[in-house]
């Protein structure tokens, strides 16, 4: 039996495990938990798994097809193989550099949560665990989380390239090792960034931090504008191409890991074994070196940073009453005060929990950025009718974004009442009123941003008044229908035990909500918006090169064009009504 005596006389303590034994213990626990998660998912979440496989597979195939077509276009449109290779090198360089920057930021955020905010870490800090081991396990988790997304995003591009270029077998052998080794580098850089930020940011005044973030955003916008700005007359000319490549020349800096990855993989595709293997070794060596550096830095500074963050404590937050709260509480007629209180309560919880609104804000911000810059693409030079198509796709994007929002945040609303549900249950409010309050709250949140986004898109594209009208009506129907579906299913499948909205949304009910919402969007768009676009194209000969005369449709299509929007309204009422009714019935009978 291994025992040793500590510094204090008479105290018997066990020898702490060796580095290898400690690593083995962590590995064993990780594997056991992973196995349990997989087993549970296979038994209880089969719908979600099939959905992920189907949707993910579909998305992957779609991306693969787009990339393969793109590479094929380059092959056929440009007769100079050197230029094609140069373009591909720039495409790869830009793609991987952009992903590397994103990975650095996401790794830093993930590690910050894992190292300083996770209850698991607090538990391990009370055990005699080496800090280096704790840090390495968190870094490993981050690499695993980052690499699957990275591989899924990169593989269609790389395989599309390999297929078109008829790559050497070495490319296929080395591709995954290259990607995994590469992803380690931004994760390590993110880890170092995380430690530096955690060390210094709590001491900086908040206005300095906010100013720095604003400066970064402004810089990013200017940079993107500069890269994407093109003189109107030069589009798709040799000068335009040279100009574009010059602007992206930063991606060809030879000390960038993205350049090593690009060069190594392109060498492997050509069958150049020496370069193909050498650049993999370069990436591996850098990844291992950075890993070692991170572990040493963490071993030296992690506890100091942890203590500094713990010392900063939490600021008191005053519960301000917002203008919206005041208006809802005192200026909304014909709504029972208790219902108003319920709606205001939900709004306050939403407003005071940045996790809920920050993701939505990021998506809306990205969409606004895209819509505002949509005219830069000069589609009107080629096919004016594409405007209609793009505006229609933009409505679809907004609706799909809305469906993810309702699945992630609206569907769990009733479940999140959880342990507090007895408060509502004992109040003199009928159960249906609780459900209706959730519908009203969700509509308040969804209508204005969605309609605003669609209006902005249509405005920037300069679509017809008819299309404006059809899009706005479709958006309203989507808001109403998706809200009703999310609240109805939320009342149908409440999960009062879960405390995390993400966990509730990822359950069976949440997955079902996403499927029904997607199907609903397809039908409503097909009935509500598409007829307006078809009508415009059909009644405007010359708008599309293939449509040179006024089109005459058969009676069935004419009926669709005339009565489709009415059908969309009826469909929204029926689907939303049925889901809400079923949810209400179930919720009325619910015992808690």
């Amino acid at each position, binding site marked *: 039996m291994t025992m040793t005596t500590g510094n204090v006389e008479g105290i018997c303590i*066990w020898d702490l495990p060796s580095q290898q034994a400690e690593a083995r213990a962590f590995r064993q626990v990780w594997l056991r938990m992973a196995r349990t998660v997989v087993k549970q998912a296979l038994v209880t979440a089969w719908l979600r798994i099939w959905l992920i496989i189907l949707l993910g597979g579909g998305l992957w195939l779609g991306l693969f097809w787009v990339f393969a077509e793109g590479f094929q276009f380059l092959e056929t449109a440009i007769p100079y193989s050197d230029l094609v290779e140069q373009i591909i090198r720039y495409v790869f360089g830009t793609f991987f550099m952009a992903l590397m920057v994103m990975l650095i930021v996401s790794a830093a955020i993930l590690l910050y949560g894992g190292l300083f905010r996770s209850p698991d870490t607090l538990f391990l800090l009370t055990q005699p665990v080496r800090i280096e081991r704790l840090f390495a396990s968190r870094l490993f988790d981050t690499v695993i989380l980052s690499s699957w997304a990275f591989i899924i995003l990169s593989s269609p591009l790389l395989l599309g390239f390999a297929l078109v270029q008829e790559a050497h077998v070495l490319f296929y052998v080395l591709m995954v090792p290259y990607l995994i080794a590469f992803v380690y580098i931004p994760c390590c850089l993110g880890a170092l960034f995380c430690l530096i930020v955690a060390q210094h940011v709590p001491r900086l005044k908040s206005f300095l931090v906010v100013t720095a973030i604003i400066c970064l955003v402004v810089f990013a916008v200017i940079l993107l504008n500069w890269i994407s700005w093109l003189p109107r007359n030069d589009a798709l000319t040799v000068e335009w191409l040279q100009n574009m490549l010059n602007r992206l020349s930063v991606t060809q800096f030879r000390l960038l890991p993205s350049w090593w990855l690009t060069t190594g993989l392109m060498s492997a595709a050509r069958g150049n074994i020496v370069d193909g293997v050498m650049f993999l070794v370069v990436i591996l060596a850098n990844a291992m070196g950075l890993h070692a550096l991170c572990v040493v830095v963490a071993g030296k500074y992690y506890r100091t940073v942890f203590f500094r963050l713990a010392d900063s404590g939490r600021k008191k937050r005053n519960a301000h009453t917002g203008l919206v709260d005041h208006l809802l509480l005192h200026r909304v007629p014909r709504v029972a005060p208790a219902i108003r209180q319920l709606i205001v309560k939900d709004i306050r919880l939403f407003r005071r929990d940045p996790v809920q609104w920050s993701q939505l804000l990021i998506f809306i911000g990205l969409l606004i950025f895209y819509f505002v810059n949509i005219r830069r693409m000069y589609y009107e030079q080629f096919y004016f009718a594409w405007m209609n198509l793009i505006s229609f796709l933009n409505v679809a994007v907004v609706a799909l974004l809305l469906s993810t929002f309702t699945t992630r945040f609206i569907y769990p609303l009733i479940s999140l009442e959880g342990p507090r549900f007895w408060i509502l249950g004992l109040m003199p409010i009928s159960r249906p009123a609780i459900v209706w309050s959730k519908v009203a709250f969700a509509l308040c949140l969804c209508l204005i941003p969605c309609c605003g986004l669609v209006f902005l898109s249509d405005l920037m594209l300069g679509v017809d008044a008819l299309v404006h009208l059809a899009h706005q009506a479709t958006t309203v129907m989507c808001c109403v229908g998706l809200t009703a579906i999310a609240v109805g299913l939320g009342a149908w499948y409440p999960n009062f035990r879960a405390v995390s909205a993400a966990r509730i949304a990822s359950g069976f009910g949440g997955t079902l909500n996403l499927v029904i919402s997607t199907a609903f969007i397809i039908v409503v768009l097909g009935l509500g918006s598409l007829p307006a676009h078809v009508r415009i194209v059909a009644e405007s000969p010359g708008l599309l090169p293939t449509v040179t005369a006024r089109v005459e449709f058969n009676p069935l299509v004419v009926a669709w064009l005339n009565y489709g929007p009415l059908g969309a309204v009826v469909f929204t009422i029926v689907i939303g009504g049925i889901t809400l009714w079923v949810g209400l019935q179930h919720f009325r009978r619910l015992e808690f």
Partner: protein
Amino acid sequence: MIVFSDVTKRFGPKTAVEHLNLSIPRGELFAFLGPNGAGKTTTIRMLVGLLRPNEGTVAICGFNTATQPREAARLIGYVPDQPYLYDKLSGREFLEFVGQLRGLPLPVLKDRIDREIERFGMSEFVDDLTETYSHGMRQRLVFASAVLHDPSVLIVDEPMVGLDPKSAKLVKDLLKSKAAEGASVFMSTHTLSIAEEIADRIGIIHKGRLIFAGSVEELRALRASDHASLEEIFLELTDEAATELSQSDPAWASKDPPSHSDPVEQPHSDWKNSEILAKTETKEVLGRAVEERSNT
């Protein structure tokens, strides 16, 4: 043994624990009492190495918990108020993990796990995933993991919350037996009757300052009437301490009670809150105050 030497902990401008001097020798069961937000959890978090004191040192058997956390942690068994368990592990797998981290050789570990399963009556559920456990089952598992390596120091934060009478009896017996075996047991609790029943010595912390440290008998001696319950004495002590403090510094009266995440503001820097002081000056001050109140 546990030694707090002139420990002060601040969170920004707020002071959560001030000039704490306290030592708990081997074989003693020490109960740490105080109202909500008094600084109990902050003290415990310094003891287990999750917080670093701004001034002074906390030592476990001579190892500084801030500068030698690993050496200190190997001697500690810790049961937090809100224990963390890995949801996707079974109770047995969790115990194996903790035992491996503490370096227990495999045959010893298996024996120890069987011993704790037997002691805490966990055989029916120890192979189920911990995500399915009730509060009492979780608490039993955490206790088992904390004593798996026979720690020299056992630190327990609110041990009785949510336990049924049988489990509570089990925990009380365990704490007493650990102290009898020579371990220092540091127990934070709100349940005065438990402290009265099993503690060798109690300490009362109020607004970050140790206002009393001694035996239950010494605490009772503060009151003229022997019929007062420990609860009444505790309430009077904390009430009078607050009054005394607010008279010496009016800013005290307006202080909010602190919480773990929101520690109390304490502007006093000259308050000598040592264990010795707690036994002499503080006792005198509080004794006078209680006496005056009884007279009026």
